[in-house]
C-alpha cells in the first residue's frame, strides 16, 4: 500500500479519538485526502553545513541580526581519531497541532489550510506567549531596529515556509539555495510529489515527537547527539557558551528574561527590570506618536 495513503487512513482513524484541533483554526492536514500539506524533509546525509540556507533566508526577509528563522546546528561526535561532524538545520516545524497558535491570544498566529503556520503582523501585540509555547524555539521577537524600517518590528516572526514564494510557484528560499540538496519541500499529501516519495522510502524522524505537535519538518538521518535538548545545553563548547553570554549582554534592552550563566542570577533579574523601566519613556513616546496619528491623522 502506498505509504502516504496509509498514513492518511491511520490519521483518519486516530483523529476520531484525539482532538487536538481546538484553537488552531484549521485542523491538521497531514495525510488527509483532498487537502494540501506542505512539508519539508531535510536529508541530513546531504547537508554540508554551508549555511547558505541561513543566509538566503535572512536575505529573503531582511531578518535582523540576532534572530533567525532558520539556523544550522553543528556537533562533533566521537573521540580522536574517530571523530565525525553532524549538521542539523532547524526551522519552524509548521506543526499540525501547533501549541503556538492555540495559545496566541489575538489569533495573530494561525494555521493556514495548506499546512503553513503563519503570522498576521497587524494583529500581533508582541506578547511573546507563542514563543513561550513553541517547544522548538522557532520564534523570535523582531527587534525595534531593522534595515528596512518599513517592515514589521516588535512583533513576533518566524519561518513562513516562504508562502509568498510557494504561492507564486517557487520553492522556499532556503530550499532554492540548498547546496547539498538536503532540503526537499512540497505537498506531502500528493503521492506524486518528491517529498511524498522520499517520506515513503526513507526512515524519518521529527523533533520531540512525544509532544504531539506533529511536525511537518522531517529529518532523514537524524542524530540523537544533536537532536537532544539536554545535550544541546550541556555539551556546548566553551566558545559557544561565551558567545551566548555575549549575545545576552549585548541585547539592547527591555522585557527579556536573559540571565548570564556564571554571573549572579539576581543581578540579571534586577538588570532586566532596570532596562525595562528605562525603556518605558521611549515606548511611551512611541505610543504617544501613534495616538497623535490616530487622532490628528
Amino acid at each position: 500500500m502506498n505509504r502516504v495513503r496509509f498514513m492518511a487512513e491511520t490519521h483518519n482513524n486516530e483523529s476520531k479519538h484525539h482532538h487536538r484541533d481546538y484553537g488552531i483554526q484549521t485542523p491538521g492536514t497531514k495525510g488527509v485526502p483532498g487537502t494540501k500539506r506542505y512539508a519539508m524533509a531535510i536529508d541530513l546525509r546531504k547537508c554540508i553545513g554551508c549555511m547558505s540556507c541561513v543566509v538566503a533566508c535572512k536575505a529573503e526577509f531582511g531578518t535582523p541580526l540576532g534572530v533567525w528563522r532558520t539556523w544550522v546546528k553543528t556537533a562533533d561526535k566521537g573521540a580522536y581519531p574517530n571523530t565525525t561532524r553532524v549538521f542539523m538545520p532547524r526551522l519552524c516545524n509548521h506543526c499540525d497541532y501547533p501549541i503556538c497558535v492555540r495559545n496566541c491570544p489575538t489569533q495573530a498566529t494561525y494555521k493556514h489550510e495548506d499546512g503553513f503556520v503563519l503570522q498576521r503582523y497587524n494583529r500581533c501585540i508582541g506578547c511573546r506567549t507563542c514563543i513561550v509555547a513553541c517547544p522548538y524555539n522557532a520564534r523570535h521577537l523582531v527587534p525595534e531596529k531593522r534595515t528596512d524600517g518599513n517592515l514589521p518590528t516588535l512583533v513576533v516572526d518566524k519561518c513562513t515556509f516562504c508562502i509568498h514564494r510557494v504561492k507564486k510557484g517557487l520553492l522556499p528560499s532556503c530550499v532554492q539555495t540548498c547546496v547539498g540538496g538536503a532540503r526537499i519541500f512540497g505537498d506531502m499529501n500528493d503521492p506524486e510529489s518528491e517529498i511524498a516519495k522520499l517520506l515513503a522510502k526513507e526512515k524519518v524522524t521529527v523533533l520531540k515527537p512525544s509532544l504531539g505537535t506533529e511536525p511537518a519538518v522531517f529529518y532523514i538521518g537524524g542524530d540523537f547527539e544533536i537532536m537532544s535538548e539536554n545535550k544541546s545545553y550541556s555539551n556546548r563548547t566553551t566558545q559557544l557558551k561565551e558567545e551566548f553570554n555575549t549575545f545576552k549582554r549585548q541585547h539592547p534592552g527591555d522585557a527579556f528574561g536573559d540571565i548570564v550563566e556564571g554571573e549572579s542570577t539576581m543581578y540579571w533579574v534586577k538588570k532586566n527590570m532596570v532596562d525595562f523601566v528605562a525603556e518605558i519613556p521611549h515606548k511611551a513616546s512611541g505610543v504617544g506618536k501613534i495616538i497623535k496619528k490616530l487622532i490628528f491623522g
Partner: protein
Amino acid sequence: MSDYNRRDFLKVGATAGAVAACPSVVQAMELKLGGADFHQLRTFHEREKAPYLCTLCPYVCGGFSYAEKGEVMKAEGNPDHIATRGKFCGKGQASLFSASDPDRILSPLKRIGARGEGKWAEISWEEAIATVAESVSGALNSDVNSIVFNEGAFREGAGARFMDTLGSSSLIRSRTPSIGNNAKQTALKNMLGADFAYPDLEHTRYVLNFGSNIMETGMPLASRLTDGMVNNRLKIVTFDVRLSHTAGRSDEWIPVFPGSDGLIALAMANVIMQEGMADTAFIDAWTNTTSADLAEQLKAYTPAMAAKASGVDAADIRRIAIEFARWKPAVVFSQNGVSSHAGGIDAESACTLLSVITGNIDSEGGLCLPRAFDIAMPQPVPEKATDSVTLNVTFPFDVKTGVKKVSVLFNHMSNPAYSSPATSFWREVLKDKKLIPLIVDFTPFMSETSEYADIILPDVVGIERHDVASSPTALLPWASMSMPKVAVRGAAKDVRETLKAIIEAVDADGSRGMTQYWAFADAEDWVKQSVAATPELKDGYKKLKKKGLWPLYGTIDLNSRKIVKDGAVVKAPYGTYQAAGFATASGKIEVPTLAWQPNTRLAAIKDSEFVLSTYKVSYHSGSKTTNLKLLSEMWHSNPLWINKEVAKRLGIADGALVRVTSEVGHLVTKAWVTHGIHPQVVGISTSVGRSSYGRVALADPTAIATFAKEEQRDADLEANLWWRDLGTNPNDIIPLAVDPVSGIQAWNDTVVSIAPAKEGDTYGDVRVDNVKHLAIYKKSIG
C-alpha cells in the same frame, strides 16, 4: 588546458554527447527552483531579473540578481546553470549586500594624515586620475618596471593588460586567477596538459580526498559530492590534519601528519601496482612511461615508509589503496592541504598519479579534463610584457633590500597586509614612503592594505559589475554573464574604466600608442567585445544577456539535478583525449620522475612543537567578506584548534588564552580543545581577525570611518550587532616560506610552539620581530 578541449568541445558535445533516454528522473515538479522573485509582502510585482555572476571565489557561480526600485534585493543561482544547478553558497547569497555596505568607499579618497593613520579627504575623479597619471608618466620616462601592479582575483586580466600597455613587467599576484594554486596547477599542467582537473563526483563510487576541504571551499563540486553520497552511495575517505566539514562528513577521516600526503599517495600507487590492480593497458597506451617501469620506480615507496612519515597505519594505507583501485570508478581530489607545502608539486603529482594508474582519467566518475572556455579580451591586445606569473610573497622583502625599485604600486582586489605571510613586514614596507612613493588602491573597501594607500579609487562591487566568465566546474563548458541593471552607488567606477582613464591621461596626445588597447566605451562594452572576441561565444551574446548562460544544453531536472533535454538526460562526453591526445609535448600523460623529498622543515619538528595549519571556512572568502554582517554573524572568531589529549598535557583548558609562538614572534588567542585535530597540529582559520575593513569586521558598531556616508547607514547593524569577538590574524606570525619550485607560500609549513598565556597577555596580542622576518627571507635567497 588543451586547446582541443576549449575550442572543440561544443562539437564534441553535440556528437558524442548523445541524449540517453532516462524518463524516470524527469517528472513534473510542483514548484520551481527559481528564475523569478517577489517581495515577502508585496507579491504583486515581479522583481526585475538580471544575469549575475558571483565572483567571490574562483568558482564564479552563475545566477540572477533581482531588483526592486533600482536596488538589488536578492541574488540566487540560475536554476538551469549546469555548474551550480541553481545554488549559491552563503557567500554568494550575501554578496549583494556589498553594494549597501555602510563602510563602503563611495568617492575617490586622498590620504591626508600619515600612512595608516586613517585620515582621508574626498577628491574628485579628475584630481585623482591626474595625480596617478603624473606619477605613471614620470616612471615611464625613467624606469617603467618601477610601476608595480599587485593583482588579486582579477580574472578578466585588465590589470595585466594595463601593465602590458605601459610595458612594465612588474606584475605581481597574490593568487592564481583560477581554481587551485600554482603548485597544483603546475603539477596538473605538466602531467595532463591542463591546469585543472574536474573530479566527476556525481558519478563516482569512491573519493580519495587529500587535503581538500571541498564541502567548504568548492560549492559546485560539493553539491555533486552529496548527490553521489546518497544516490551512488559513494565512499569518501579524507586525509586532512583536522576535522574540516569535509573530513567530518566523510566515511573515513584519516588524520595525517602535515606534508606527508604525497608519500602516502606514492605508497598507495605502489600497492596498486604490486597487487596487479592497475590499469596497465591505460598506462601503457596513454602515458609516456610503461607500467613495468612505473611499478619499478614505485617500489621504493612502501606503505611502511609512508606510515612512518605520516603516522597513518600501513595497513590502512594498503586497505584504502586496494579499495580505491577496486571500487571503480574512483577519483582523487587534492588541494591546498597537499600543495601548500614545500614540495607541493611533487605531492600533487603523486596524488594525480593514483587516478592515472587506475585509468580513472576523463572517464565517467573519474578525474576529468577541464571543460571551460578561454574568454578573450577586447581586441587588439597589447604585447605581453611578461609571461610568467610572479607571486607577490617576496615583494616587500625585495623592496626593502633594494632588489626591487618601486615608484608606483597599484593594488587591486588583493589584501597582502592581511592575507600574505609576514603581514607585519608588508605593513612596514607599505608604510615607508621612501621605498614606495605612491600607493594606489582600486578598492570598494578599506582593507588593511588600503590603509597605507595614498590614493583610493573606489571600484564597483560584484553586483554592479559587468562580467563574463567561464570556469571548469561542470562536465560541459559554459560561460556566464553579469549584466547589472542597477546604478553604481556613489562615485564608484569600474576599475577597467578607471584604468582606461589613467591610460588616456598618460597618453593624452596618443603619441605613446596606448589608447588603442583601451578603446572600449565602458565595462559593459568591454564584456561585449570580450564575447565577440571569443569564438565559442560570439553568437551567444544575446542569449547570455537573457539567460545568463551559454550554451544552453537543456534544463536542470529539479529532482535528479541532471541536465535534461526533451525528456532525456544529456550525457557529457568522456574520453575526450582519445581524439586528440593530451595537451602535453608527447600528447600523453607525462608522469614526472618520481621524487620524494622529505619536507625538511617539518621532518625536523620536535615533540614539543606543532604545525600551524591555517584554512578557509565555508562562511567567508579570503578577506573580502568579513564586513558582510550575515556572514560574520555566523563566523567571526577563530580560536586555536588543539587536540584534547595534548591540551590536557599542556594544561590548556577549553577557552583558555594561549600563546602561539613561531620563529618570528607570537600571538595570543583562545584555545578550542577538540577531538578533531591531529595531536601535532594546531589550527587557526583565516578571514577574521581584521584590523580594518569596517564595523562588522571589527565587531564594533561605533567604529564609523570618516568617509562613511550617512545614506549607507544600517540601523540593524548599529542596534543589533551582538558579537564582540573578532578573532586573530595568523599571518603576522607566519614567516615567509616560499617553495622554490612552485613559487607559492608553503602556508602549511609553519612550526609553532604552544603554551598557556603568560601574565599580562591579552586576547589578540601580536608581537612580531620584523628583523627575524627579514633574516628568513635572506636565508631563503641564499
